[in-house]
């Protein structure tokens, strides 16, 4: 077990390294750098001005060197003001290193966001917190709902209840967030008028039933379908096992069979599926945040990407890849832990 964990951790670190390197390489493609320079110089500068801006701020150094600086394994060099010859800050809104030193992610310096004009860490921590709240509410509604749906439709395969519930969960998998968001807003906000069609206020006054229900329900509806389908399949399989038949022949009541005998074995697969849903959830959350104007991780990611905010994107990428890999890891461990028939080889 211990070796297994060590190996997974190694893979995790290697993946995070590769991913951040890819993001770094793409955001530093020439057209993207130019895009950054245009937004940062705030004027219709000519090619020469853009070039000199990139040169002056160190974007023309070799890419691997700068990646090393971001990571914190190569020393960051201060930028000198040509007028005074003194070390200066590249941007007015962040402090840069004043003497050569190791100052990268490994040292806790996530760099400077050019889009939000402040330190990456200052901007991204509240954003991640906001998204965490959203995800928490999504999880807490989605998982029980999906499990109930799946168990109810899987306990009697082919029954009318199964058909109806299956249709609902298939409809869920067919409704991406940008569709269900529109439909739910039209129904609950415009037509019935009982919910707020925007979650903008949730950023300041915190989530309430009025402003937070729509975004949560929107994500839940899409994510729920898949988990419910998986739970159903797993439930159907368990219900065909010999020991269930034995229990029925013994005269155990049907609810008791479902709750006591089938449920525990049927929930192993859904557990791993729920964990693997996290990347998709993150994706849905991004769409929902844009749609309902909620300032979380997704908002920061999209704004950063639209303005080629290199260091912000690196942070976003790193955070999401770590989230994804950690949930995968938990899913693997949980699968082994919940299913005693399988042991790590």
């Amino acid at each position, binding site marked *: 077990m211990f070796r297994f964990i060590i190996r997974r951790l190694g*893979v995790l670190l*290697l*993946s995070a390294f*590769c*991913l951040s390197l890819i*993001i770094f390489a*793409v*955001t530093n*493609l*020439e*057209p*993207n750098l*130019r*895009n950054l320079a245009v937004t940062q110089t705030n004027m219709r500068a000519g090619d020469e001005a853009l070039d000199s801006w990139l040169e002056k701020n160190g974007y023309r150094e070799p890419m691997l060197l700068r990646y090393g600086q971001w990571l914190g394994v190569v020393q960051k060099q201060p930028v000198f003001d040509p007028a005074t010859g003194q070390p200066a800050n590249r941007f007015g809104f962040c402090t840069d290193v004043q003497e050569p030193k190791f100052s990268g992610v490994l040292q806790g310096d996530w760099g400077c966001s050019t889009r939000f004009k402040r330190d990456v860490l200052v901007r991204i921590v509240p954003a991640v917190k906001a998204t965490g709240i959203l995800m928490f509410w999504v999880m807490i509604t989605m998982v029980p709902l999906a499990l109930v749906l799946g168990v109810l439709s899987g306990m009697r395969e082919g029954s009318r209840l199964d*058909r109806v519930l*299956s*249709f609902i969960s*298939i*409809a869920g*998998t*067919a*409704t*991406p967030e*940008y*569709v269900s*968001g*529109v*439909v739910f*807003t*039209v129904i609950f*906000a*415009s037509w019935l008028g009982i919910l707020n*069609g925007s979650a903008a206020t949730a950023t300041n006054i915190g989530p309430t039933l009025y402003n937070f229900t729509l975004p949560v329900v929107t994500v839940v509806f899409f994510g729920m379908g898949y988990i419910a389908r998986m739970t159903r399949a797993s439930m159907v399989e368990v219900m065909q096992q010999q020991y269930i038949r034995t229990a029925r022949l013994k005269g155990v009541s049907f609810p008791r069979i479902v709750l006591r005998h089938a449920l525990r074995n049927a929930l192993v697969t859904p557990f791993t599926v729920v964990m693997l849903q996290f*990347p998709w959830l*993150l*994706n849905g959350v*991004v*769409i929902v945040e*844009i*749609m309902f104007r909620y300032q979380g991780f*997704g908002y920061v*990611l*999209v704004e950063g*990407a*639209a303005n080629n905010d290199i260091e912000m*994107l690196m942070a*976003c*990428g790193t955070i*999401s*890849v770590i989230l*994804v*890999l950690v949930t*995968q890891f938990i899913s693997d461990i949980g699968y082994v832990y919940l299913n005693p028939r399988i042991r790590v080889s």
Partner: protein
Amino acid sequence: MEVQLVISIIAGILAKLWLPLLVFAAIVAVSVRFRDRLGIFGRLWSHGFGTLGLSIILIWSLIAIFAEQVAPFDPLQQFVLMKNQPPGAVEAQSGEMFLLGADRLARDVFSRIVHGSQFVLSIAPVASALALLTGLLLGLPAGYFGGKVDTVLSFAANLILAFPVILVFYLLVSPGVSSSGLPQMLGALVLICPIAFTLLLIFSRYTHQRLKPILLTAITLAVGGWLFAAVIFDADPLGVLFVPDAVLNILVAVVLIACPGIFRVTRSLTLDVLSRDFIAAAKTRGETSWYIMLFEILPNIRGPLVVDFCLRIGFTTILLGTLGFFGLGLAPDSPDWGTSIKDGSAILRLFAWPALFPALALMSLVLGLNLLADAIRELFHED
């Protein structure tokens, strides 16, 4: 009055759809008549979800094919007086009804949806097919050989899966990247896969013949070269096929996101059948590895792959909608559903129809695909 209006709108839509519906009825009549001889396709017509799913997909495909005949207006034309008019408003000049209303640029929502279906139904299946071939080409050897091949390929697949999709889209589908040649490079990689796949099919099948493999290879390379010229270099010698850079860019991004999933499915299915007797028999006969993969394993895992392919087209449709929703890679006035949903959701609280109807269109198409996948899964299970 309300009810009357709704009835006249529905009647109007059905009247516009007469051609697709007629062809649809013909297809249904023929396939139900001969369903005993059509194998699994015929059996789908006696399955509730299957019938529903197939009907939805067929109708959408026919709408896309006959879009010119169905749409009453040009999807890009603006009728200034009609701005934000509700469904059922009549355009004065032509006397035609705006069946599903007008958007904020005073374009006919119904015509835009009809034309938007062309975009989705042409790109989504192609992208899914390319992703399927890529996934097969990598997944079969990963499962069959295991070891280092598997480790490297699985690592790469997990790496792509760990990327947030939105970030991939922003990084890969932007005008800047489009001009950097990166999509062309990835496109070439993606396009090599079907060619390599066909060549492997030929060589593993006809190991003991001379003329046939050479002939087939020549044909494959000619077709492949033509596709390469047309798709990657925009220089089709025949002048038939033209793929704009923007579309290539979208295609590449979607394939890249879809193929790790197919890779994983193929790999685990391959592992499942690997210990069966017929594999051992084939090995004993001295068949080559690729022959075993392509002609022994592949036919035996086709069921789950067909199901996955159906779901994958739906998933690709959702991805295309996501691209439109973020305004990436498409012209701002493109009639595709994602772009319409984005435009419409800005004014959703005032005027619901410009966003609502494209959203329902997208949902119905994906629903059809998912229902079909479910039905196929059940039918394969019965076997």
